[in-house]
C-alpha cells in the first residue's frame, strides 16, 4: 500500500488523518501541496517526524521546487516523477485526497 497526500498539512487535518490510519511500514508519498509538510521548523514538523518514525516518507522534487521549499526535515526522501511512477507500480495506491 502507498498512501499519497496532496493537501496542505495545515488544512483539514488531512495528513494527521492519514497517519492515524496508515499501517506502520507503508510508504507515504507527499506531492502537490502535501510537500509543505516536509519543510523543516514548522508547526507541523512533529507530525512528519512521527510519520518518519514508522513510514518511509517521499516528497516529489518538482512540487518542492515549485514552492521554493529548500530546507527539508531530515529523513524525507526526494524523488522525481520516475520515482513516483516506480512507487505506484510497486504498491496499491491509497490516495488520501
Amino acid at each position, binding site marked *: 500500500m502507498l498512501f499519497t497526500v496532496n493537501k*496542505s498539512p495545515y488544512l483539514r487535518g488531512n495528513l494527521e488523518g492519514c497517519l492515524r490510519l496508515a499501517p506502520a511500514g507503508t510508504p507515504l508519498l507527499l506531492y502537490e501541496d502535501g510537500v509543505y509538510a516536509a519543510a523543516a521548523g514548522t508547526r507541523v514538523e512533529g507530525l512528519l517526524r512521527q510519520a518518519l518514525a514508522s513510514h518511509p516518507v517521499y516528497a516529489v522534487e518538482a512540487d518542492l521546487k*515549485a514552492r521554493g521549499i529548500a530546507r527539508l526535515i531530515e529523513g524525507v526522501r526526494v524523488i522525481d516523477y520516475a520515482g513516483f511512477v516506480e512507487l505506484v507500480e510497486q504498491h496499491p495506491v491509497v490516495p488520501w485526497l
Partner: protein
Amino acid sequence: MEHGEPRGEPSGAPPRKVLVLMRKAPYGSLYNWEGLQVLLIMGAYKMQGLVDIAVAFVEDGVFAITQGQDPSSLGMKAMAKTYPALPDFEVDRFYVDGQSLADRNLTLDDLVIKPEILDVAGMARLLAEQDAILPF
C-alpha cells in the same frame, strides 16, 4: 458618457474599503491565481476613487509570497513574481498574519514583498474596518 464606459467618481461617496484575503497555497488550486486577477482588476477601480484596496495573507496564503518559487517543471508561472508589481496597479497595502508566518517557519526575509505583520488583534481590526472581504 459613452455607452459601455466605466463610470467615474461616484457622487461624493467615500471609497469602499475592500480586503482581498489570501488563504490558499499557490499551485495546488486556482484560488490564489484568481485572487491575483481580482487585485489587478480592483486597481482600476481604485484609480477611479471607488475602492480602497488592501491584501492580507493568512494561513496557507502566506505561501503565495515566499521567495525561490520555480514551478517551471509543473508548466506553471511563478505566482510570487506578480506581487512586487502590484503597486504599479495601485495595490500597495499588504498585510500578513504573524502567527501564520511563525507556524510555517517563515519570516519577512523569506518573502518577495514586505507586508505589515499583524497580530491576532491587528488582523481582527483590519477585518472589522472593511466594507467587503473577498476570500481566496
